[in-house]
């Protein structure tokens, strides 16, 4: 009974708190720019509105066009549920769950790209190509980061891996993972969620043809993915598992907010880099993770 309640609580956190993050980012950006900006809850309004709207489907699209966002959404949610939520713990923990998490995100990527290519639009093809290509480099960084955590803790399950802090390599890992967060969630400097030029986008251009409930699933999934990466980043760096419940909750909430605000500031203060420089940026993130890995390796051997 208790476990069901706990599961529902975790589900509620992921489902209902995730759309807050884009709102916070937008508020920060508005504040830096000296505007009032949209309300923090704007995404909730958008989702509610989209859920009741009709759907326009391209004449070329197969049923996969609607199934794609649904599968991607479930994949992201499942990946999120595998991730421990600080003091709330995790729903399911087993050896190797971290690999399942990474590949669930890959499943979401496959389905998003698939749905984008359904329409036969050159722009969406472009976006899908960029998404799957940059993911190659991001994947290398993520695997390295996970290896670092695994070597540090001597474990392959998320709850044990994320309990202690990374130690001396924490800063390197934090910066590396933050860059991966920006790339995977299509934020500046990799991508601009606010642009209205299809040619310059990655993620936003893939969902150009979506509308109504499928678009709601896409937007909500993206918000959950942002929360997922923030939670992962905070827990990878801070020794959440070693704190008391109150301190851990505070650290979690504070950490996630800090990450979100940092995303907002990055977005306000930097420009999107040219596409040919994106691989360079991602390689830098990968190298940072490699250095963190080397530190963890030396630390473990000593």
């Amino acid at each position: 009974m208790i476990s069901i309640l706990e599961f529902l609580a975790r589900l509620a956190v992921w489902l209902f708190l995730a759309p807050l993050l884009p709102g916070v980012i937008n508020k920060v950006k508005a504040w830096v720019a000296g505007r009032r900006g949209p309300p923090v809850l704007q995404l909730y309004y958008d989702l509610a509105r989209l859920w009741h709207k009709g759907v326009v489907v391209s004449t070329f699209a197969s049923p996969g066009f609607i199934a794609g966002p649904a599968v991607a959404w479930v994949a992201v949610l499942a990946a999120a549920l595998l991730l421990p939520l600080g003091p709330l713990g995790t729903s399911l923990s087993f050896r190797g769950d971290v690999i399942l998490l990474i590949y669930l995100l890959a499943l979401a990527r496959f389905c998003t790209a698939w749905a984008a290519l359904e329409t036969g639009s050159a722009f969406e093809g472009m976006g899908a190509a960029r998404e799957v290509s940059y993911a190659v480099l991001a994947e290398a960084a993520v695997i390295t980061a996970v290896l670092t955590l695994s070597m540090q803790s001597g474990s392959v399950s998320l709850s044990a891996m994320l309990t202690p802090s990374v130690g001396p390599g924490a800063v390197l890992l934090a910066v590396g993972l933050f860059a991966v967060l920006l790339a995977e969630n299509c934020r500046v400097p990799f991508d601009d969620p606010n642009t209205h030029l299809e040619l310059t986008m990655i993620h936003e251009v893939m969902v150009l043809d979506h509308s109504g409930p499928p678009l709601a699933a896409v937007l909500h999934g993206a918000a959950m993915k942002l929360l997922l990466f923030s939670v992962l980043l905070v827990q990878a760096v801070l020794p959440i598992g070693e704190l008391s419940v109150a301190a851990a909750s505070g650290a979690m909430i504070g950490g996630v907010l800090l990450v979100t605000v940092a995303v907002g500031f990055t977005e306000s203060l930097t420009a999107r880099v040219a596409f040919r420089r994106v691989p360079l940026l991602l390689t830098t993130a990968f190298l940072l993770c490699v250095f963190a890995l080397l530190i963890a390796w030396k630390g473990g051997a000593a």
Partner: protein
Amino acid sequence: MMMDWLIAGAVIMLVAAALSGARFPRVWLALTLAGTATLLATAFWTLGGGAEWDWRSSFAVGGERIHLRLDALSAWFLALVAVVGGGGAVYARGYWPDCEHPASAGRGRTWWSMLVLCMSLVLLCANGLHFLMAWEAFALSAFFLITLERERRETRAAGWLYLAASHAGTLGLFAFFSLLATKTGSWELGPMRDHAELAPLFWVALFGFGVKAGMFPLHIWLPSAHANAPSHVSAIMSGVAIKMGLYGLVRFSGWLPLPAGAGWVVLALGAVSAVLGAAFALAQNDLKRLLAYCSVENMGVILIGLGVALLGTANGDTAWGRLAMAGALLHVWNHGAFKALLFFGAGSVLHATGTREMSRLGGLWRAMPWTASLFAFGSAAISALPPLNGFVSEWLVYLGLFDAAASHTRVAVAIVPATIALGVTGALALAGFVKASAVVFLGAPRTQVAVHAHECGWWMRAPMLALAGICACLALAPAAVWPFISRVLVGWRSAWSGGKPPASLITLGYTHLALAASLTVAAIALWFRSRTNGVRRALTWDCGYALPTARMQYTGGSFAALASGWFGWVLRPERRLHWPRGPFPRQADFVERIPETVLERVIGPVGDAVMVASAWVRQRQQGSLPDYILYLVAALAAMGALVLFGSI
């Protein structure tokens, strides 16, 4: 006793099938199916805990008595031979019927049964001499199957290349088996780990079997052979035949003592094959060539598992070695199933449109919904996406790698790069398969052939459905095959006890079930919600452009351009581009070809050099007597010098 009869029955049925193939297609199909079903039964009997089958003939062939043996390791590969052999026979009836290929259909049936028979014999032979005979017969039947369509020039070229490469490998195996026989004094094969002097032979075996397994850079024959063979042949070549090379590696790495560097080298070869195979696959524009390169990638994944296992045995039979080996073995089955499925799907596309060129296809899902959904299923499975079977085996390999890395021993130097390589491979394979399935099946038809495509018949659909079913079973109940795997592990290294399935594997199975259920529910729910809200069909939004044409879609080449650009140093694409010039451009074209780098840049030049040298030598053979006398004197002088100084 029962096993004697079953295996004898299977052999007789397959021989009878080969004899009847040319004239009686129905009898052939019935006999092949019965033969493969019997083989499958014997394989599962052995895997399910039956006693090891061992049989010696009273007569001799080639001076040696025939010795056949079926243990768990042979049975593991035999099951794959039987499944794809039977499925491909059914598929061939729809794909390569007499009415469309009157000249080659009968031949194809005969050689198909021969191929299945010879591969089974390779798995059963426990005598080096007969192993070589079966191996050669297997290579030859594969050659005749690849060149079924021999009126096409590319097919002939692919066939010759295959034959040459295959024999280069066989040469290595001749050396291997004869050295083995000389050192042990008998052709009998069996565990001989206490003969430490045999260890260097592993390198010879690695070359000989590596050619067949298609590991980079020995894969040169593989892409063209798999692309130009009829699709059911590509399926068995890619799904099963290359696994024979792997069988040899696994078998002899279990029986022979290993040199110190074996695990390191296999791991490195696996990582290189995986990453470069995936990169080459992504860059291809030919659907079947893409699938062929993807086989190189998957063999790389299996070799990574094997390499970790070998490192594990060198470090005192560690648990992580076992996990990685279990993953490698499971990937053998998985890859056999989904690669055969994908080649069947590609064959169905080729049958319907007459082209393998992806840039001429598109939008096929409307005409071929079965093929499209089955191909998509296979693509997701081969990209190792949960909740499908490819993920289970890669997950086991990952577990082995992570545990090895966390052990903080010296092996981590190799393990860490291999893990990263495996991650990169996964992302590249995903990109490649998004490209393959989307460019072929989604969007708008790019040419008329794609508009007039038609769905394949039930003869072709049924084997695809069966293979997809196998993939689904392996995905949702991975723990059910663990007893088989653990028996194979025990057979491989007798010191290894298999034990119960790891608890996390059982959990993963349940997670897959839950995931599959929720994915289905979510897709249906979203579909219903959209329908209640109202679905309107409209033109694709193309930045407001009102008259998009099918040729404006993103092509496979442009889709892959970004990621394959990073591998330009090894892909070396050849591009010819005529820019459109002036206000009313007449002519503009762009041709891109991805060469076979190893073949054209390494083997080709070496071959050319040999030809030049031979031509020079030929010029010295002009029939002029003084020259010959000069050669004789020179040779005598050289021999004299050898005798004089050689004895010092």
